């Protein structure tokens, strides 16, 4: 799809290893992990490491208020708006649209709704439980009045939100969109991924021959997407242009990826076609890299299929060992990290990974950040239900 060109003019993040974009860029260059022992709740397992966020100014008590996932989203959206230099109460912000992706939604409120509660609490919970409450809370906080949308696609939720927001700008529905996603750590997801045997008992080490699973995380990321001429007219700083995106289904299994990454290869191909970019023009691929035995080889297979011999010149990485698998927020947080790194001339390392797996024989950036000039990158994510999304971005 052509139409108007879309650029990123603001980034906001809150993750286990950073509370601001500046901290995030530093942490990614230094290979600093935010994974530690979970204190938010007792997960009920002998292992309890996770990428838990310390929300500034909060003491951990929940009480009757906005769900944790909305609070994370509001923090990231606030940062993104300030980073983009959009005036509070100004017309550009007031007309902006919003697209939020989340996998578990307001999970803490949901968990409380499912136990008996008094009428007042039930009214409050009903306000917070629907997935669209996150978008509503962000829109009210910032005074946004453009089209608002909530997408959910497990671990590709925020990637899909970004793609959807790109399309809104490209077809001229709006000139500014806030797009991203949020998910919080919950007893349900910690338990669920554990009983699926997807969680590591040791360390999350994607693409490593000794990998034994993922580590959960939480957080939120928001990008300000803007129509190119609108951004130029107001003299905004431009991080990157989003050239295209693609989505495709595996049509295979509820939780396992297709062993050859069939849907991911199709999503990558669709994104490159949408971006009118040849595979050889891609300098770096930020992969999903969960660190589970099944995901990483399937993903590498798809990358090989699409990029062929170009794989020798295509450094890849995974940011999950540093921030955890943030589920619905993974797409935006990892794209945001890759854009920040691209601007600063490096590729973040896949920390903890040291012994290559022959089934993941790509140029995996391990150990320390690699200094290199990236002009065009692709970020890919995959999800439960066999959903895959790829997004292509170019430095401006």
């Amino acid at each position, binding site marked *: *799809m052509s139409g108007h060109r879309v650029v990123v003019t603001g980034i906001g993040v809150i993750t286990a290893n950073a509370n601001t974009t500046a901290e995030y860029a530093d942490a990614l260059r230094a290979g600093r992990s935010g994974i530690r022992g979970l204190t938010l709740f007792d997960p*009920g*397992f002998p292992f309890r490491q996770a990428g838990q966020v310390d929300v500034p100014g909060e003491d951990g008590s929940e009480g009757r208020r906005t769900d944790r996932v909305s609070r994370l989203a509001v923090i990231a959206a606030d940062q993104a708006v300030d980073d983009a230099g959009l005036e509070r109460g100004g017309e550009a912000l007031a007309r902006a649209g919003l697209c939020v992706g989340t996998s*578990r*939604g307001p999970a803490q409120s*949901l968990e409380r*709704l*499912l136990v008996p509660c008094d*009428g007042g609490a*039930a*009214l409050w919970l*009903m306000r917070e439980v*629907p*997935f*669209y*409450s996150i*978008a*509503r809370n962000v829109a*009210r906080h910032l*005074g*946004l*009045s453009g*089209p*608002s*949308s*909530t*997408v*959910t*696609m*497990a671990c590709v939720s925020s990637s899909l939100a970004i793609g*959807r927001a790109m*399309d*809104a700008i490209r077809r001229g*529905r709006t000139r500014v969109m806030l797009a991203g996603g949020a998910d919080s750590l919950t*007893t*349900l997801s*910690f*338990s*669920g*991924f*554990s*009983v*699926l045997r997807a969680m590591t008992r040791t360390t999350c080490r994607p693409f490593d021959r000794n990998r034994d699973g993922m580590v959960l995380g939480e957080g939120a990321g928001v990008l300000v997407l803007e129509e190119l001429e609108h951004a130029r007219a107001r003299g905004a700083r431009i991080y990157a242009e989003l050239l295209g995106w693609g*989505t*495709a*289904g*595996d*049509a*295979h299994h*509820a*939780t396992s990826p297709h062993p050859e990454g069939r*849907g991911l290869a*199709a999503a990558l191909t*669709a994104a490159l076609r*949408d971006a009118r970019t040849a595979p050889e023009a891609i300098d770096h691929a930020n992969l999903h890299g969960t660190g589970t035995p099944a995901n990483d080889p399937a993903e590498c297979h798809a990358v090989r299929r699409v990029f062929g011999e170009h794989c020798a010149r295509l450094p890849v990485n995974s940011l999950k060992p540093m921030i955890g698998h943030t589920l619905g927020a993974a797409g935006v947080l990892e794209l945001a990290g890759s854009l920040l790194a691209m601007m600063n001339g490096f590729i973040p390392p896949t920390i903890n990974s040291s012994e290559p797996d022959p089934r993941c024989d790509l140029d995996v950036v391990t150990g320390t950040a690699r200094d290199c000039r990236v002009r065009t990158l692709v970020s890919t994510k995959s*999800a*439960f*239900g*066999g*959903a895959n999304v790829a997004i292509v971005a170019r430095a401006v």
Partner: protein
Amino acid sequence: MPNQVVITGVGPLNPHANSREALWRLFHEHRGHHPDAGGVPARRVTDPLHGVGAQFRQMDSLGRFVLTAVALALEDARFEPAPAGDEGIGIAFGSGYGCLAANAEYLDGIRQRGARYGNPVVFQNTVPNAAAGYASAARGLRGPTATFCSGSTAGLEALDFAFLQVADGRVPAMIVVSADQLFPQLVAGFDAHGQLSPDGVPRPVDRRRNGTALSEGACALVLEDLQVARQRGARIYAELCGTGHGGDGGGDPSRGLAAAVDDALSGAGVSAAEVEAVFSCASGSREVDRWESRGLREALGARAAQVPATCPKSLLGETLGSGGLFAAALAALTLASGWMPPTAHYAEADPECPLNVQSDAAHRLDPEIALVPALGEGGSGLAAVLRRCAP
């Protein structure tokens, strides 16, 4: 120039209708009364299993609703994706409230047995997109996929996404489906907010309206590129010629709806004066019905009070996310047949909802252009414009 998109299959599933023919019959045999008048305010689908293979036994009921509606729509379209899977056909799914029941089941299990003894089969159903994933795997739908969970606009948002995929030439066909299931706390929440009619009778845009009646179910549509549909000799119900999405203008829902209608009309290249039928989202709610009328007046001007309108929720109840797709399905069938379905329980006009409602029976109006609006709780409106397709 974007490709023309047509609707070639309709798959409705709700307590009153489980096929295109049954849906049409429900409205045509209607004699002015809700099938449930005086009954329970919330209706459940009893047997959603239809053509479901053994490998999908792990599905929750939301997944079964979706798979059943998709099967009905594909059957209606006489359309079968390639046995080995088809990258050219995608699936867009919208659910207002997602899989509350699966989440409750999983949480109950770990509360009783401990976090280490959660049921992994239930866990895979705790994300709303699981339902679309099952349908994708069962029918080999390997094209673009997206799931929306945005309240009452979820179905039309999925329609908007799917429409753009086909109109932009990314794929030749998309399946759109929307589903919601009733869940005790959800019904209690609507009740606590005073949204449910005490006598269980939805009276959209009627002065006496006192709330809506919840219902569950699913509705699926098959969208195809016009040329592709013609080549395979498909029966075409209508052209989907524009979709729109608008924001609430900072808290006034009627403005979101008006913006969405403007967007959809301009995308379709249609003026307000050309709209000949409105498939209203009014549900019997005191507020929603008023907001919708105000939004339509803002977008269509004086035409809003003249154009024939019908309120499908008077018979179907409030089906949450799928309301927009049921309305779009009825609009497509109306354009194909010329007969405009009536609104049940309409007797007293409300000056705050001045729609030209057809109340007694179906009328032969042969409309050329139909408008389907949807008002969302999350601060936005959606709209779709359909056009009669020359045979």
